[in-house]
C-alpha cells in the first residue's frame, strides 16, 4: 500500500469517529437541556452542561481533522480531484455551508448560556443537530458517487455533459446516507451510554448519581431506536450492493463463484479462491438476496483478478461489523425490556452497556473498511484506479509519520480530557 493511501486511510478512520460523535452528540445535549426546561430538574441541566463540554472538545477535533481531509484531497489525490472536482464538487460546497452553520451555532450554544434566555439557548442548539446531520449526508453523497459514478460522460478522455445534481444523487446516495447517518446516532448513543454505565460501575460519580442515570437513559433510548433501524438500513444497502455493486457484495460475502444456492459464509480464512474453516449456511445468501434458494448470486469470478478488492480484508471487516451490530442489538433489546419494566439496570447489564461503547466504534470503523476496501482497486469505480490517482510528490511517507504522531497525541489528549469532564463536578 502506498504512503498516500495509508495517510488518507488513517485520516479518514480517525475523522469518522469524531465526525459521527459530532453529528450525534448535539441531539443528546439538546434533549437533556429540553428536559431541564420542562422539568426544571437540576440533574438534566448538569447533564446538558457536561455533555456540551464533551461536544466542544470532540467537535473541535472533528473540525481540525476534517480540515486535514480537505487539504489531503488535493495533496494526495491531485489526479482524482482534477477529474472529480468538476463533477462532484456540489455536495462538498453544500457541506461547506452546512459546516458553516454548525460552527456558528456551536459557538452561540457553547458560549451563549448566559447571553440568551433559556428557551433561545435551547433553540440555538437545533441548527447544530440539523446541519450536523446534513453535512454528514452531503459528504456521504460524494462517497456514493465514488461507488457508482454518475452525472457525466467521457468522450475521448475528457469529461463532458456534467450534470452536478445527477452526480450528487448517484444511485447509492439514499441508502448510503441513511446507513451513515444512523451509524452516527448508534455510535453516539452507545458511546455516551457506555460512559454513564462505566461511571455507575466505578461509583466515580456518587454525588451525581441522578445525572448519570438520566444520561444513561437518554443515550440508551437514542441507541435503542437507532440500532434496529440500522439493521434495516444495512439490509437495504446489502440488497443494493448485490444488484448494483456485485463485486463489492461478492467480496464482503467472500463468494468467489457465481452460483445458485449461494451460502452465507461467516468467518473463515480467505486463501486463494476459497474460504477455509468458515461457517456456511447453505443457500442463505440466495434467500437473502432474492427470497429464493435457487436464485443466482454473482461471484468474484465475473471480474479479472486485477479488478477484485482485497477479499480477506473486506470479508473480515464485514463479519466484524455485523457481529458487533448483533451484540449492540442484543444489549439494546435487553435494556429496553428492563427499562419498560421500570427496573434499574443491574450490574451485568451495565457491564454490557459499557462494552457497547468501544464495540460501536469498532462497528463504524469496520463498516467504513467494508465500503472503502470493497471499492478497490478503484477510487471511482470503473473510472479511475486508486494507484493512478495518488500523488507522485515526494515526502508523503514523512507526512504519514508526522500526521500519525499528531493523531496519537490528539486522541490521547482527547481521551484524558473527556475522562476529566466525566468525573469532575459540572460547572
Amino acid at each position, binding site marked *: 500500500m502506498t504512503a498516500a493511501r495509508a495517510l488518507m486511510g488513517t485520516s479518514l478512520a480517525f475523522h469518522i469517529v469524531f465526525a459521527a460523535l459530532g453529528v450525534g452528540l448535539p441531539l443528546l445535549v439538546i434533549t437533556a437541556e429540553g428536559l431541564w426546561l420542562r422539568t426544571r430538574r437540576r440533574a438534566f441541566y448538569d447533564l446538558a452542561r457536561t455533555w456540551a463540554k464533551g461536544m466542544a472538545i470532540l467537535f473541535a477535533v472533528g473540525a481540525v481533522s476534517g480540515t486535514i481531509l480537505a487539504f489531503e484531497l*488535493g495533496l494526495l489525490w491531485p489526479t482524482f*480531484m482534477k477529474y472529480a472536482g*468538476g463533477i462532484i464538487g*456540489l455536495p462538498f460546497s453544500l457541506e461547506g455551508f452546512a459546516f458553516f452553520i454548525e460552527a456558528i451555532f456551536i459557538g452561540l450554544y457553547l458560549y451563549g448560556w448566559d447571553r440568551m434566555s433559556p428557551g433561545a439557548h435551547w433553540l440555538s442548539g437545533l441548527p447544530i443537530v440539523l446541519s450536523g446531520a446534513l453535512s454528514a449526508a452531503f459528504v456521504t453523497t460524494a462517497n456514493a458517487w465514488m461507488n457508482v459514478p454518475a452525472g457525466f460522460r467521457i468522450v475521448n478522455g475528457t469529461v463532458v455533459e456534467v450534470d452536478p445534481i445527477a452526480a450528487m444523487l448517484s444511485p447509492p446516495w439514499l441508502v448510503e446516507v441513511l446507513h451513515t447517518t444512523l451509524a452516527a446516532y448508534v455510535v453516539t448513543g452507545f458511546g455516551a451510554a457506555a460512559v454513564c454505565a462505566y461511571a455507575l460501575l466505578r461509583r466515580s460519580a456518587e454525588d451525581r448519581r441522578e445525572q448519570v442515570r438520566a444520561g444513561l437513559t437518554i443515550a440508551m433510548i437514542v441507541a435503542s431506536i437507532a440500532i434496529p433501524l440500522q439493521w434495516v438500513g444495512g439490509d437495504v444497502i446489502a440488497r443494493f450492493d448485490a444488484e448494483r455493486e456485485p463485486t463489492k457484495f461478492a467480496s464482503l460475502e467472500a463468494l468467489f463463484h457465481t452460483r445458485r444456492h449461494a451460502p452465507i459464509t461467516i468467518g473463515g480464512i480467505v486463501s486463494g479462491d476459497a474460504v477455509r474453516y468458515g461457517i456456511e449456511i447453505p443457500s442463505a445468501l440466495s434467500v437473502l438476496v432474492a427470497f429464493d434458494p435457487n436464485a443466482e448470486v454473482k461471484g468474484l469470478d465475473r471480474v479479472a483478478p486485477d479488478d477484485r478488492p482485497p477479499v480477506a480484508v473486506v470479508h473480515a471487516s464485514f463479519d466484524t461489523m455485523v457481529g458487533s451490530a448483533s451484540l449492540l442489538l442484543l444489549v439494546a433489546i435487553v435494556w429496553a425490556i428492563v427499562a419498560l419494566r421500570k427496573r434499574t439496570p443491574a450490574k451485568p447489564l451495565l457491564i454490557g452497556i459499557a462494552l457497547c461503547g468501544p464495540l460501536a466504534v469498532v462497528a463504524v470503523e469496520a463498516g467504513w473498511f467494508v465500503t472503502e476496501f470493497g471499492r478497490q482497486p478503484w477510487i471511482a469505480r470503473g473510472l479511475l484506479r486508486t494507484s493512478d490517482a495518488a500523488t507522485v510528490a515526494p515526502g508523503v511517507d514523512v507526512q504519514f509519520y508526522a500526521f500519525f504522531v499528531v493523531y496519537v497525541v490528539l486522541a490521547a489528549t482527547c481521551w484524558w480530557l473527556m475522562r476529566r469532564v466525566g468525573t469532575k463536578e459540572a460547572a
Partner: protein
Amino acid sequence: MTALLGAALVALTAVSLYAIFGGADFGGGVWDLFATGPRRQAQRDAITHAIGPVWEANHVWLIFALVTLFTCFPPAFAEIGANLSAPLSLALFGIVLRGAAFVFRNYAADSLATARSWTAVFGASSIIAPFFLGDAAGAVATGRYAWTSPFALSAGLFGVALCAQIAAVFLVRETSDPPLRDDFRRRAVRATLAVWIAGLIPALLARQGEPALFAALIGPTARIAIGIAMLLGVVVMLSIQARRDGLARAAVGAEALAVLGGWYGAQAPNLIPGRWTYESAASSPAMLHAFLVAASAGALFLIPSLALLFVTFKGHSGESGAALPPKPNR
C-alpha cells in the same frame, strides 16, 4: 462568462474573509505567545475570550475557499496540491495544532502543567500556520510554485505580521480595562510598523528575483491598491493614537482587503500566473451554475447566522472575560 465571474468572486471573497477573520485568530495566538508584562495573564484571558465563540466559524472560510477552488477550478486545485505539498502540509500542521491546542488548554485549565504546554503549542502553531499559508500564496504568485524562494518566504513573514496587526487592533475593543486596552494599542502600533517593513521586503525581493511578478506589482492595479493599503496603514496608526478604536478596526480590515485586492488584481486574469487563468481552469458551465445557485441559497442561511454570532458576542465592546455562568435555580 458571468457564472465564471461569480465563481471567481466567491472564491476570492472566501480567501479574503479567511485572511481577515482567520488571520485575526492566528494573530491572537501570536500575542498569546508574546504576552508580557504585569498584565500577562489578563492579556491571555482577553485573547481566549475574544477567540472562543468565533474561531470555528472563522476557520470555515478556509474550508469554504478550498471547496470552492476544487469545485469551480479543479485543475488549479490539483496542481497546487501536487506542487505545494510541503508548505501546505506544514500550514496544515499549524492549523490542526492551533485549533486542538486552543480547546485543550481551555478545558484543561485546572491542570496547570497541561494547560501551559498546550498554551505553548497554541502560540507556536499560530505563527506556523499563517507563515506557510503566506509562503504558499507567495509561491503561487511566482507562477513557479517556488515556495523556498526568498520572495515566497518573505510573503510568509508578511502574512504573520499582518495577522498580528489585525489581531492587536481587534483586541483593543475586546476588553474594557483601560491599561489592558493600552497594552493592545502599543502592540497595534508595533505590528503596523512590522507590516510596513515586512511589506517592503517582498517588494524588494520581487524586483531582484521575480521580474514578471515585479512588472505586475508596478502595474496600475497593484500600484493603486498598494497606495490605498499604505494610506489605510497610516489611518490605523493615527486612529490608534487618537483612541478611535472603532475607526482603527475598520481601517485595518480595509487595509488587508486592499493588499489582497492588489494581489488578485496584479495577476488577473491569471489564477496561477503563466499556468492557469480563471477561464482555462474553470469547471463546466453547468457546474459553475449549480455552484452559484447553491452558494446563493447557502448565503441566505449563512449571512443571518454570522450576523447573529457577531452581534451576540461582538455587539457591545468592552465585555471583559466573564467566564462561568451562574448556576440555575432549582
